[in-house]
């Protein structure tokens, strides 16, 4: 055989390259945490001085101190990666080992035994092979998930089949060999034949299979990680996109949400790819090298390996077996092997994960990183250790001169507060003051109905900058506190109707007091301006943006602003800033100096073909009133009786004829994408058809006088089809008519549940997704602030927290992205509650 054609004369590139890759990954797993330059859990909200400018997270790769960049919270990707390889590899090795063991057991059983056991095991193997691992794993995790045992079981339960099939075939081949026949003839027991002959001959195959098992397991683990299942502190969290402890699957899971910050995904994905590639190459290389069918050239490594093995066998194992007996000898052999495995990586793989974050071994990054612009914290952050699932005050911050408006939370979790003296404070996720900036020009101040002076709060953008709305201009401040651009306004902004964002938070729409519409991009400022065709117009609603980008808003015209409102209009503007149509709202002319109806509640219908303005329905295509309106709405007496609302549809002593004459109506769209209307205390689910409004369902909130009842202050429908209403009467007179309360109504089951707010609690936040309410109230003597979370159908709070020394609340806010409750007390202290 020529040298060229002899495979054993050539370098086994697969084994060589694969071995190098595995050595690299193993080294990362063992020494990675010690090499990590930072604590992987340490958030670094910044700012960081890079060259001559300040930068905020996420930092790009090759930033000083962040070689692979950072995530949105400033956590170092390189450190996460160095910490993340170990738990992933541990898990993968455990799963691959378990699969191999199961595969060996089933394969031996199927290959060695005869019918009927062989047939049964064969069917089990074929069945397991037929079911895709990923589907089974997903189903098991969905059903039994949340713990590591389920996770490993899900990965092992069918993954062994391929291995078993190969071992079965090889066992059958070995079983036919003459030495097995000889052993059988000499009366050797099956156990001995399997142990001494079959498994020994299977060893090369097992090594190959183990390599492929590891790569296959890692592929499944990383795919599950990508789909949202990953290890967190020895638990599995499904679809929890916020990462905690670093792990490759977790890094992948988080990254899918932030394509503009792909560093973590690229880094983790590359490590996964390299590891799979390494194990695949080693598997292929071993297949060539350990090919027992081929004649083998004995290299010096083979010769020495054989010599050492022989010496161990003759001088250690054999004497022990002779002295202690065969069984104990086998046990000693296993213990020796395990000890070797433990000794080689120095026991590193057994280290506990979180508890070993040894900051002292790392570089002192404080020496490298610049100090924040101003580390002065007016009141030191008070941090309470969280109990399990108990709310706690994550941090608090005192704004020296108080704040006129609610805080704004950026997409990166940074909190922005404007003080009465127009200072903008940027606070990190841990409450640390990042920077403060005097806002010049100051934000626009206006008077509320109750006479309180407030401002239009700054707007957080998806680019982590802040847009400040002043009286004559709008400007942006970047995440480091520098001014970016400035846009002049023709008139002051429209107070409470000022601003809205499109669905992707890419464009902000601003209405000024003369109903001019400005489209503003976070990074570059004004993109277009739409001027109303009439003079002396006043905005009556916020701009509402449909999914196709069309902007709708209402405004009123008056010959003189002091004389009150004239006709009201519904305006539609294209995403390019051109008029789509304008439509008069019928019967909207002022009567007695007051507009008859508020036109500030605009909803775009679920199909985007209809626009609802209070009780009116417009065609979204041309702005005409839809052929069918609520005024045509007929509900026949029989149906009314069936729905149990007959008595509510009529006044005292009247006879109901089928026509509704409502005092006030609100048509709205639920979070579940369905049409609803409320008139009085009756709520209808409806559908717009060619023949009119078709009632699908109705429910009475059981508040009393049916149609004459005032509309709630807030109403909505959760994605779980649960209707919620909130009544918050502001005066004592109004309280006599209805108590402050919240209601949950299940329309399908005609089931109502209410929580009466007898203590006059101040409702601070609402989660429209699942219908939870967060109440906070403060009392005097003793001064206590109490916050509670109510789930739907519960009059007992899910949790509550009390804070001493606070006797009044200014306002509160729930941020769904961070899941935190932000409370601003009147003592100018800002509390952040986390659970």
């Amino acid at each position, binding site marked *: 055989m020529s040298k060229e*054609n002899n495979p054993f004369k050539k370098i086994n590139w*697969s084994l060589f390259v694969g071995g190098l890759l595995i050595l690299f990954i193993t080294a990362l797993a063992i020494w990675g945490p010690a090499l990590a330059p930072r604590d992987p859990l340490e958030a670094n909200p910044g700012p960081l001085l890079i060259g001559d400018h300040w930068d905020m997270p996420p930092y790009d790769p090759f930033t000083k101190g962040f070689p692979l960049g950072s995530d949105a919270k400033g956590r170092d990707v390189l450190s996460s990666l160095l910490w993340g390889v170990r738990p992933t590899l541990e898990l993968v090795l455990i799963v691959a080992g378990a699969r191999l063991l199961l595969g060996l057991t089933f394969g031996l059983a199927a290959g060695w035994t005869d019918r009927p056991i062989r047939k049964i095991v064969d069917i089990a193997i074929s069945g397991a092979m*037929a*079911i*895709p*691992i*990923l*589907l089974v794993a*997903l*189903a098991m995790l*969905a*059903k039994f998930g949340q713990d590591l045992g389920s996770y490993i079981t899900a990965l092992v339960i069918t993954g062994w089949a391929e291995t078993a099939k190969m071992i079965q075939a090889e066992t059958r081949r070995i079983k036919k060999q003459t030495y097995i026949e000889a052993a059988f003839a000499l009366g050797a027991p099956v156990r001995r034949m399997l142990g001494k002959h079959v498994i020994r001959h299977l060893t090369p195959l097992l090594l190959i299979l183990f390599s492929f098992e590891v*790569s296959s397991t890692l*592929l499944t683990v*990383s*795919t599950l990680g*990508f*789909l*949202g299942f990953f290890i967190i502190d020895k638990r599995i969290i*499904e*679809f*929890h*996109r916020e990462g905690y402890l670093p792990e490759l699957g977790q890094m*992948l899971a988080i*990254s*899918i949400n932030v*394509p*503009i910050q*792909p560093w973590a*995904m*690229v880094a983790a*994905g*590359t490590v*996964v*790819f390299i590891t*799979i*590639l390494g194990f*695949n*190459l080693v598997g*292929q290389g071993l297949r060539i090298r350990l090919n027992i069918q081929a004649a083998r050239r004995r290299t010096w490594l083979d010769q020495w390996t054989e010599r050492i093995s022989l010496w161990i066998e003759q001088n250690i194992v054999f004497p022990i077996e002779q002295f202690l007996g065969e069984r104990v000898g086998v046990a000693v052999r296993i213990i020796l092997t395990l000890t070797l495995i433990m000794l080689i990586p120095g026991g590193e793989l057994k280290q506990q994960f979180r508890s070993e974050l040894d900051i002292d071994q790392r570089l002192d990054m404080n020496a490298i990183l610049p100090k924040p612009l101003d580390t002065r914290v007016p009141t030191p952050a008070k941090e309470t250790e969280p109990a399990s699932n108990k709310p706690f005050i994550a941090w608090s911050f005192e704004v020296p001169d108080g704040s006129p408006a609610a805080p704004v939370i950026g997409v990166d979790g940074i909190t922005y507060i404007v003080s009465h003296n127009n200072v903008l404070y940027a606070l990190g996720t841990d409450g640390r003051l990042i920077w403060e900036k005097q806002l010049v020009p100051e934000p626009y101040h206006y008077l509320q109905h109750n006479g309180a002076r407030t401002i239009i709060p700054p707007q957080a953008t998806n680019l982590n900058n802040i847009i400040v709305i002043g009286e004559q201009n709008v400007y942006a401040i970047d995440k480091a506190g520098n001014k970016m651009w400035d846009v002049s306004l023709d008139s002051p902004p429209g107070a409470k109707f000022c601003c809205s964002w499109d669905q992707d938070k890419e464009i902000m729409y601003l209405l000024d007091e003369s109903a001019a519409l400005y489209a503003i991009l976070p990074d570059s400022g004004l993109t277009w301006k739409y001027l109303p065709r009439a003079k002396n117009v006043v905005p009556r609603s916020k701009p509402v943006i449909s999914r196709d980008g069309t902007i709708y808003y209402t405004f009123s015209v008056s010959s003189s602003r002091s004389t009150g409102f004239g006709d009201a209009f519904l305006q539609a503007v294209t995403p390019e800033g051109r008029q789509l149509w304008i439509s008069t709202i019928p019967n909207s002319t002022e009567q007695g100096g007051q507009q008859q109806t508020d036109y500030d509640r605009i909803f775009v219908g679920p199909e985007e073909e209809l626009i609802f303005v209070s009780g009116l329905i417009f065609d979204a295509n041309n702005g005409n009133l839809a052929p069918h309106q609520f005024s045509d709405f007929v509900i026949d007496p029989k149906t009314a009786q069936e729905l149990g609302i007959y008595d509510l549809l009529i006044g005292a002593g009247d006879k109901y004829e089928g026509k509704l004459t409502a005092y006030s109506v609100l048509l709205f769209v639920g979070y*579940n*994408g*369905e049409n609803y209307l409320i008139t009085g205390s009756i709520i209808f689910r409806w559908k717009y058809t060619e023949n009119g409004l078709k009632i699908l369902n109705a429910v009475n909130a059981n508040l009393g006088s049916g149609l004459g009842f005032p509309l709630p202050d807030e109403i909505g429908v959760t*994605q*779980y*089809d649960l209707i919620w209403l909130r009544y918050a009467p502001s005066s004592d007179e109004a309280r006599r008519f209805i108590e402050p309360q919240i209601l949950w109504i299940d329309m*399908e*089951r005609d*089931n109502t549940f209410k929580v009466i707010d007898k203590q006059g609690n101040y409702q601070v936040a609402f989660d429209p*997704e699942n219908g939870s309410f967060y109440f906070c109230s403060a009392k005097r003597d003793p001064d206590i602030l109490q916050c509670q979370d109510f789930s739907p159908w519960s009059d007992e709070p899910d949790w509550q927290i009390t804070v001493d020394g606070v006797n009044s609340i200014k306002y509160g806010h729930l941020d769904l992205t961070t899941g935190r409750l932000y409370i601003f007390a009147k003592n100018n202290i800002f509390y952040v509650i986390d659970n």
Partner: protein
Amino acid sequence: MLRFTFHRVIILLVVLFAAHFFGYAFTFAEYARNLQNKGEVVDNVWGSYRSYLTEMVHLDFGSIGKNGEKVQDRIIRSSAVSCGVLAIAFIASTVVGFVLGFVAASTDPPRVRTWLAVLATIGLSMPAFYLGSLIMIVFFYYLILLGPNAKLPLPLQGFGWDSHLVLPVLVLMTRPAVQIAQVTAEYFSNEFGKQYVVAARSFGHTWRKIRTRHALRNILVPVVISITASLKLLICELIVVEWLFGLPGLGRLLILMLVRNVSFLSNSSNLLYNPQLTSAIVGVFAALFLSIDFLGSVLIYWLEPRYRV
């Protein structure tokens, strides 16, 4: 042949029924618990399944949530997307894989060319999500580079029977294609080392004739087995690809249905723990798998005379 086919069809039907029942039972406990909490009387799983079967006979497969959307409508809509994407990816991967394998099998000496070995090793080691994400990131930077008015050459998200399919199919077909190519090339090169090929060469047959007339017939069975396996691989990858590119197919529906907290990302509340929907999805997946298995085994039985003996 008939007996074999009949035997396989019976097994297919039994397993399909079992899978359908399993799908129903899988979410029934949660579903029943929810109903019981609301004070409703619920039959046991078998009784409930029997009622469901009776409704199925009348072509009523149940409804999803309170919107009243019919399960069969949703399943047909999602299956059309998934099966369409699968079919295109399957044909593409088979053709590309086979052509690559055909080209990569060198005749003298008989071996697999190095470029395919490298390509196959890299391709098989690259998870679909990684490849897909890399493509998305490249496109993203393309947009950043050319500004907000730039148009992407291919859409990254959404579904349509047009250019929307290019990237999902590309990501989906990569691993199966290299797998088929590897198997084809390996078996071809094995055949080229056999005596009958030497004999054929000595008779003056061209390599083209040997490849197509003799070697191809001998390797068809393992290649068909590999294609069948690749189709199963495709179905698993489909879940990830549908999730990544936002295709409204069965895989995405499965994720939306199985995972409770996914509703944080998308409105799936109506899909959670719906036994009718689960059984339908499991049924469709099982039918796909079993049909592939059935067609593969019938094809192998037909191609390989030794099985018929």
